[in-house]
């Protein structure tokens, strides 16, 4: 057992280091579920209201975005709460796992801190084991809080169902802790390790998306489908827990095996020598910023293209469904003012615009990590103006995010146009994507302004994104007041395709984004550079 020596000390150390971070994650996840559970009865007071909502589960878009649904004949509050949000809570739990695991394993190696720890009496697997234990503990706390608090908050929410809800979320979260433990062994860089785990998370989302729309058996191969398969508040099933334990066990053993064969601080792939000279494109600030973000840009574009293609392949399901359900289709079209297909495509473009922020925000914030890691100082000591340096990162973020969204939308547009045999659909989808670009730019502008004016509060840009996400995905479900919608930049985008393209709102959003960026550049010029 010498390989595990020191684990308990490391666990206490990690809990001490993250005494704010972990409680915030837990409070965020539990808090969102509780708020949601408390709000739903007010929004859907009668059984008829709930049943109307349940009928929406027949649509492919609901299956695509939320899962297969269950218990639709008796759509109680409990079923409603679990079926509508479990997928997204599971994603949040998985992200928490990925960030925390990589932070305590590969990041520690990358910065060289682990070297000092490993030189003391600490076993080979102690760091990984400690990080994994801490994350599992955090998930168990979430599960326990949900099991205890949900019955207090919601009407007719039983303890058993609440427990199944909590355990379901924990299963998905813990599986991705195992995934991150493996990816942390593969790359030398924490950033790459988290990206790889995030790609697997996105893959899990897609597998269950296709499964839930078309071949249901496929969904069982995605850990993200498991929480809903536990069917909390209906006929609770515990098979997903068994699957989760087995898969996690395999992942942890795999991570240990990889850990055994590699050196501290090394990846599985050895670094090779590179060129002795920088190319011209690398020797200017924009080229340099682009070079740093190139991998991320390629990764996100590829991911969004796969996503758009997957979404696009479900378009046929939508038109089939509309043909089979003329009554409901008519009702929906009267309500939305656009065809079912148009509203579906519009929603997908918005979803991709939200996902594009996953490239845009970190790209803009790269300036912050360059400052924190002491790289900015070396460059700003040269004849490079601060505004040009920061502007380069923001410009890459602006152009790159447009590229990511347009490439994903093009994939969606091509498949949708082929499926519907309507070339105009492609142009409509690209038009919708263009209209969303300024909304993403506002988030980049906000990142720039925070970096310049309030670098310590930079997390606010993520909160703004989370807000836009919740409003975009759950806004209808929660029946939010219109002022809450209007706080999200994504809600000022004209409803395309189908709606009217309003030049004014697009121009205004762009101007706001530019104003934020200019304010960020100016305020950065007036503050001290942080020392390492």
């Amino acid at each position, binding site marked *: 057992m010498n390989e595990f020596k020191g684990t308990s000390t490391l666990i206490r150390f990690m809990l001490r280091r993250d005494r704010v971070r972990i409680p915030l994650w837990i409070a965020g996840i539990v808090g969102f579920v509780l708020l949601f559970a408390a709000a739903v009865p007010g929004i859907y007071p009668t059984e008829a209201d709930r049943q109307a909502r349940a009928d929406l589960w027949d649509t492919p878009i609901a299956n695509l975005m939320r899962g297969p649904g269950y218990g639709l004949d008796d759509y109680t509050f409990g079923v409603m709460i679990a079926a509508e949000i479990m997928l997204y809570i599971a994603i949040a739990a998985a992200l928490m796992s990925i960030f925390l695991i990589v932070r305590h394993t590969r990041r520690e190696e990358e910065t060289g801190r682990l070297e000092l720890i490993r030189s003391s009496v600490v076993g080979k697997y102690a760091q990984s084991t400690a990080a994994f234990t801490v994350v599992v503990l955090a998930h168990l706390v979430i599960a326990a809080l949900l099991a205890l608090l949900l019955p207090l908050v919601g009407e007719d929410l039983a303890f058993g169902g609440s427990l199944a809800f909590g355990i379901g979320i924990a299963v998905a979260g813990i599986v991705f802790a195992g995934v991150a433990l493996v990816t942390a062994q593969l790359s030398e860089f924490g950033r790459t390790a988290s990206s790889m785990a995030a790609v697997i998370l996105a893959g899990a989302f897609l597998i269950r998306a296709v499964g839930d729309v078309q071949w249901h058996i496929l969904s069982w191969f995605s850990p993200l489908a498991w929480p809903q398969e536990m069917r909390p508040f209906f006929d609770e099933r515990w098979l997903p827990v068994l699957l989760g334990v087995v898969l996690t066990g395999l992942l942890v053993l795999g991570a240990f095996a990889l850990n055994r064969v590699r050196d501290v601080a090394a990846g599985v792939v050895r670094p090779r020598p590179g060129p002795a000279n*920088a190319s011209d494109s690398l020797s200017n600030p924009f080229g340099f910023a682009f070079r740093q973000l190139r991998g991320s840009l390629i990764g996100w574009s590829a991911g969004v293209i796969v996503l758009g293609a997957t979404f696009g392949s479900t378009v046929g399901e939508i038109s089939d469904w509309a043909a089979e359900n003329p009554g409901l289709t008519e009702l929906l079209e009267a309500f939305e003012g656009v065809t079912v297909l148009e509203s579906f495509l519009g929603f997908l473009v918005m979803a991709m615009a939200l996902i594009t922020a996953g490239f845009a925000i970190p790209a803009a914030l790269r300036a912050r990590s360059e400052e924190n890691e002491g790289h900015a100082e070396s460059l700003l000591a040269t004849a490079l103006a601060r505004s040009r340096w920061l502007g380069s990162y923001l410009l890459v973020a602006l152009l790159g995010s447009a590229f990511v969204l347009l490439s994903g939308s093009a994939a969606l547009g091509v498949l949708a146009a082929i499926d519907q045999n309507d070339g105009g659909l492609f142009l409509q989808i690209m038009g919708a994507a263009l209209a969303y670009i300024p909304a993403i730019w506002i988030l980049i502008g906000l990142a720039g302004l925070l970096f310049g004016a309030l670098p310590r509060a930079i997390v606010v840009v993520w909160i703004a994104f989370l807000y836009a996400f919740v409003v975009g995905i759950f806004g209808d479900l929660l029946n939010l007041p219109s002022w809450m919608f209007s706080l999200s930049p994504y809600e000022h985008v004209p409803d395309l395709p189908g709606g009217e393209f309003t030049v004014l709102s697009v121009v205004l959003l762009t101007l706001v984004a530019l104003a934020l960026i200019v304010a960020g550049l100016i305020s950065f010029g007036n503050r001290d550079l942080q020392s390492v």
Partner: protein
Amino acid sequence: MAENNEVLRFDNVTKRFGETIALDSLSMTLERGEVVGLLGPNGAGKTTALRILLGLIKPTEGQATVYGFDTWLQPVQVHQRLAYVPSEFNVWPNLTGGQILDLLGALYGGYDPDIREQYIERFNFDPNKKGRTYSKGNRQKIALIAALMTRADLLVMDEPTAGLDPLLEQEFQTVLREAKSRGQTILLSSHVLSEVEVACDRVAILRNGRLVEYGTLQDLRHLSARTVEATYRGDPPDFADVTGVEDVVFENGHVRLQVTGSTDPLIKAMAKSEITGIQVREPTLEELFHSYYGEEPVDG
């Protein structure tokens, strides 16, 4: 015409971080071609002074100028004429050393590739490796080569030899002398006293954010206590009321003492006895250090 030779000026520069005063009304100037050593214990404000000089942080009060340009308001003009070697150079992990050199060189405004090659050879540096695989000393070489190959008028160096092996430290001394003979002005913060003693024309000593001394090593030595040892026959000399004399120790026919300032009163007092031998020793830089650093407890 003295104005035209001025390279760098700190004019009453104060920097506060919240309550703590990192730099307390610093005033000093550097003239063209001078090599100045910046000394002081950890936390004395050396790095803060250099970061102000680079325009990375803003002086709370006062102004720093380089070639007449305000370091905070006109950093680009300033940086076109200087090159900086940080005490710890954080390289980008996925770029090679050669790529980092070219990037910094291009951003400084250009360099001669032949000079780059010369320094790579002299420092025995491998430019093909990825950033994260370099040792601390090799990372420091990147910063040194990048700063030297630009041939900037002013070199600002913050503990540049940290992590270098003794042979390379020696090479660095040679490089410094060459730079000086080319007329480059150098501001060098260092803990390596021999480096400062050999290379620097003037020395500035910071302590708790204040400039406590600024002058040639010669000046500093005169200001500081010298050790006098003498042998005598008969009655011992009386130093009771002699100004500047301290730490007198008598030991059968031999006396050792410290004297500060003019030696005239001491000589006159000694003349009353029969002095058979006398030896005056200048303080070493280490002793100077002790006298400037050691009196009060230093906060980190």
